[in-house]
């Protein structure tokens, strides 16, 4: 038989595609495997056949059950040979075949013999193979040998046993846990990798015992760990211990920080990096703690190794999201990376710069990015687009150049996700920066002239319908929209018809022309387009008379469907065709399970086109909608502010309740979000009894109890209070949940007839001054400050007493006032002894308030501040001082 593995040196050059496995075929190789059964084994030949089998498996070939069994039995014969090379191939082959339990028994004795061989290589490999293929029962038989192997003098054997232990811990934890004495001993090994594997296993054995892990870390951080890999492990365990103990240490230094910092001076780069990364990821890391880590990462930025540069810039990029000031020192190194050969590094560098840069550098950066956008992949482009969007929101004055950039890249080639990211960004900019609206809308109009994505076209048309009519010259958009009716597919055409109707409804002067256009659509080839055109012509009164569009029509065109779509769908499905038309009012409005997590999301998240603007785009809108649906609250006026949910129960109690404070001019509404976490209970007549004796200015007016609160279905209870109009009244409220509880048979889900009345004490709730302050930023604080003038300025100085750090003091004051920090002044540069924060907000009664606070810290950490408040109303300025004085 031919020997393909023999080198054919002579035909090497003329046969470019030469491969020793050329024309290899599974059937033939399986035939060749018969040599394993020869009485006189040829080790070399057998090795070659095994290599061929492995090659086939590696190329993705599969063996049938019968084939695999046959090969397996043949391979077991090869244990007779004492050729080391062949034996190693046998080990590999057995691992690849992953034999079944009854097959394993055949090789067990051979492998156990090898486990006790004098040859280290046999011992190590036999352990790995046996542990890979074994099951629990066999493990007890070989446990003794494995324990011995863990403390074997030969590091390869010890490592093999330890690594096998790590794998076995997943399937047979109770057995592996018995080895901890041996593993402990192996941690002290002189061999670097043995120590690494032993440490890995020991930690996993003890992972559920926090105290033991903490002890392990304490003893090892003092000792010497030899291998860099083990040191990396230790750093990871240390940060875990720090994370878990963080709550207990409010003051003083962080435990183990010194160890992490020491690792920054290790000689292995992987350890330095691991430590630097661990420091940047510490909870609430301070600038002082960050500095040494940033310094080593900065050195990595100019390394000749791409991997090092990548690792460093990726970490700094993450740091820049939370501590932009800390990263600014690296800006020069970062800029040189923009032209890095490795585009991943360049992209990360650019986006980091966009996060840390100041207003003046925007234009220069944009120029550099423009040069480099064309030669990076779409996924990186999306990263850049997102960075630009946040930059634009940070520096609204620069919207012009940023918007131009976005519109330029919108015209270039790109996939759907990329284009969607750009369009989303433009939409967000239009919504948040009024000045950018007109130019942004025109960019979008131009884009849909030549847009291959139906989804994007319809979304943009929808958005145009909402925003277009409100612009100074709505007529200029009509051409773009009507072009769609001619040129696009039916989906886009229908969408364009709806948009035209919205213009018609809002802009009376355009009405006659819109009617003409809509009438033309009546001849469209698609029935949806025709239907829409007919519907709109009728609702808008397209019979020729130009009348002012009444409120109902506007509601119909612009109002959102304030029904949960799920409920709507169910109702429609249940509707049986009859004389009686479907009544939309019969659809229940209560949302079955309220997405609490979504409401807890901090602040306004930029929502792109994904969420249509009429849907609850932000929590405030959602709350407004929720409250306006309750008739009792209808005359409370406009909702001023809704607080973040405050938990009134501990986590994992029987009933979980949190509360949202809704502030109106003359009222406060508490929205209690309740969840019943007991499957065996149904609560009925659930209400919250509020004692407002410590809130004198408030008097209770309305309570909206819940009729029923079944298991795991959140419900809301509302309690409304009247308070003096426009006055920021404060007070403390104690709450008691009162209800009738009924037992539920969990198997049938039916509740018993009779219930028992019960009460459940909730935590107290406070209305504080910050509840009357809206976090509203200004784009240019200095301009705003000067325009406001000093007429109603109030300045005073306060001592804040000893504070842990300046950052802590700044955050405390910002939280107390509930105002929006401007121009990134909430971040205190490291090692600063003084700091100025600029805050902006809107106080109840719609009074804009600007605050400038100069903080100073002296030796024993005494913090003092000078607070200057400007607003349109003296009383409000005084009120702000009042907040600080009483806080």
């Amino acid at each position: 038989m031919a020997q393909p593995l023999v080198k054919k040196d002579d035909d090497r050059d003329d046969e470019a595609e030469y491969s020793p496995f050329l024309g290899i075929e599974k059937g033939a190789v399986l035939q060749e495997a018969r040599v394993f059964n020869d009485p006189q084994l040829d080790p070399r030949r057998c090795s070659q056949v095994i290599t061929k089998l492995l090659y086939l498996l590696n190329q993705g070939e599969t063996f049938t059950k019968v084939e695999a069994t046959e090969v397996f039995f043949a391979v077991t014969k090869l244990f007779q040979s004492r050729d080391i090379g062949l034996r190693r191939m046998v080990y590999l082959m057995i691992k690849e075949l992953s034999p079944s339990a009854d097959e394993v028994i055949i090789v067990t004795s051979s492998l156990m013999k090898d486990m006790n061989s004098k040859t280290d290589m046999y011992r190590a490999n036999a352990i790995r193979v046996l542990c890979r293929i074994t099951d629990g029962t066999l493990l007890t038989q070989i446990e003794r040998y494995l324990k011995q192997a863990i403390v074997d003098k030969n590091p390869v054997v010890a490592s093999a046993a330890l690594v096998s232990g790590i794998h076995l811990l997943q399937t047979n934890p109770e057995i592996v846990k018995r080895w901890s004495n041996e593993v402990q001993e192996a941690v002290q090994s002189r061999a670097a990798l043995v120590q690494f594997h032993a440490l890995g296993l020991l930690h996993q054995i003890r992972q559920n015992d926090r105290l033991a892990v903490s002890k392990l870390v304490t003893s090892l951080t003092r000792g010497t760990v030899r291998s860099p890999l083990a040191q990396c492990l230790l750093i990871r365990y240390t940060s875990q211990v720090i994370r878990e103990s963080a709550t207990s240490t409010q003051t003083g230094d962080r435990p183990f920080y010194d160890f992490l910092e020491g690792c920054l001076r290790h000689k292995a780069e992987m350890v330095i990096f691991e430590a630097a990364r661990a420091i940047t990821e510490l909870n609430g890391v301070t600038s002082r703690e960050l500095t040494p880590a940033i310094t080593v990462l900065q050195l990595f930025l100019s390394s000749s190794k791409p991997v090092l540069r990548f690792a460093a810039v990726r970490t700094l990029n993450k740091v820049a999201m939370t501590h932009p000031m800390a990263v600014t020192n690296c800006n020069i190194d970062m800029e040189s990376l923009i032209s890095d050969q490795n585009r991943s590094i360049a992209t990360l560098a650019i986006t980091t710069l966009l996060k840390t840069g100041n207003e003046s550098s925007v234009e220069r950066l944009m120029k550099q990015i423009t040069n480099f956008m064309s030669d990076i992949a779409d996924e990186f482009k999306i990263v850049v687009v997102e960075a630009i969007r946040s930059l634009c929101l940070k520096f609204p004055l620069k919207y012009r150049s940023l918007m131009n950039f976005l519109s330029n890249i919108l015209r270039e080639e790109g996939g759907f996700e990329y284009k969607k990211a750009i369009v989303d960004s433009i939409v967000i900019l239009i919504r948040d920066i009024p000045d950018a609206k007109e130019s942004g809308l025109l960019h979008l109009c131009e884009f849909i002239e030549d847009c291959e994505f139906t989804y994007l076209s319809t979304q943009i048309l929808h958005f145009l319908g909402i925003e277009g009519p409100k612009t100074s010259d709505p007529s200029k958009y009509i051409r773009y929209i009507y072009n769609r009716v001619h040129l696009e597919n039916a989906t886009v055409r229908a969408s364009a018809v709806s948009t035209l109707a919205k213009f018609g409804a809002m802009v009376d002067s355009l009405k006659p022309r819109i009617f003409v256009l809509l009438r033309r659509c009546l001849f469209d080839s698609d029935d949806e387009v025709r239907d829409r055109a007919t519907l709109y012509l009728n609702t808008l009164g397209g019979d020729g008379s130009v009348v002012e569009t009444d409120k109902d029509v506007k509601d119909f065109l612009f109002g959102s469907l304030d029904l949960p779509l799920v409920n709507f769908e169910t109702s429609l499905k249940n509707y049986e065709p009859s004389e009686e038309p479907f009544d939309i009012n019969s659809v229940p409005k209560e949302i079955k399970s309220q997405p609490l997590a979504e409401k807890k999301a901090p602040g306004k998240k930029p929502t792109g086109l994904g969420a249509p603007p009429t849907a609850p785009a932000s929590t405030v809108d959602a709350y407004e909608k929720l409250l306006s649906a309750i008739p009792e609250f209808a005359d409370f006026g406009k909702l001023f502010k809704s607080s973040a949910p405050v938990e009134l129960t501990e986590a994992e109690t029987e009933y979980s309740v949190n509360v949202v404070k809704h502030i109106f001019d003359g009222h406060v509404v508490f929205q209690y979000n309740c969840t019943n976490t007991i499957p065996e209970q149904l609560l009925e007549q659930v209400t919250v009894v509020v004692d407002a004796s410590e809130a004198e200015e408030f008097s209770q007016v309305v309570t909206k109890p819940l009729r029923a609160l079944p298991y795991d279905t959140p419900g809301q209870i509302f309690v409304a209070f009247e308070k003096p109009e426009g006055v920021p009244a404060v007070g403390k409220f104690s709450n008691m949940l009162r209800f009738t509880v009924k037992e539920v048979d969990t198997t049938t889900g039916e509740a018993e007839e009779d219930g028992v009345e019960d009460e459940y004490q909730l935590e107290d709730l406070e209305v504080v001054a910050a509840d009357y302050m809206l976090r509203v930023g200004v784009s240019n604080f200095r301009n705003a400050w000067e325009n406001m003038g000093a007429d109603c300025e109030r300045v005073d100085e306060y001592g804040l007493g000893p504070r842990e750090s300046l950052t802590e003091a700044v955050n405390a004051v910002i939280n107390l006032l509930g105002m929006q920090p401007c121009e990134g002044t909430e971040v205190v540069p490291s090692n600063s002894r003084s700091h100025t924060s600029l805050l902006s907000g809107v106080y109840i009664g719609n009074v804009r308030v600007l605050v400038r606070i100069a903080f100073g810290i002296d030796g024993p950490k005494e913090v003092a501040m000078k607070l200057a408040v400007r607003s349109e109303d003296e009383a409000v300025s005084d009120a702000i001082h009042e907040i600080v004085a009483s806080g």
Partner: protein
Amino acid sequence: MARDLCPSVKNILLLDSEGKRVAVKYYSDDWPTNSSKLAFEKSVFTKTLKSNARVEAEISMFENNIVIYKFVQDLHFFVTGGEEENELILATVLQGFFDAVALLLRSNVDKREALENLDLILLCLDEIVDGGIILETDASIIAGKVATHSMDADAPLSEQTITQAWATAREHLTRTLLS
């Protein structure tokens, strides 16, 4: 969960200059089928093809994985790890594999040589990572473990050639002298 703390390798790939497999080894379930593996290899190969990873190892991200790669002649070496993995640890694994292969193929590192010595390459992979856990990263140790192709010391002489017998005898002698 704690398993995540241990540095882990998701796969090691050795492809040729057309992106075809020379030898690959997967340690994670991220790519359950052969076709998903091939798709990953194809995407990684085409996206790294143009980069210059011949002097220093290069790095990129694919589908939330870090891929570190280095090329020599018509061979492309890749090591993949999770998004949160320490890049430098993965780079050390790649370098260990790369250098060990160079030692084993006696610096004549190309596809043809690699295929002709595929047994060595497969053993090499086996010595570097076991089920995702790094076994060894020192190239000379890895190559040393792979290259012990001598006879088992306890083997009967009949199976040995004269030279092998000589070597065994010499080894025996040294061991007796040392112990």
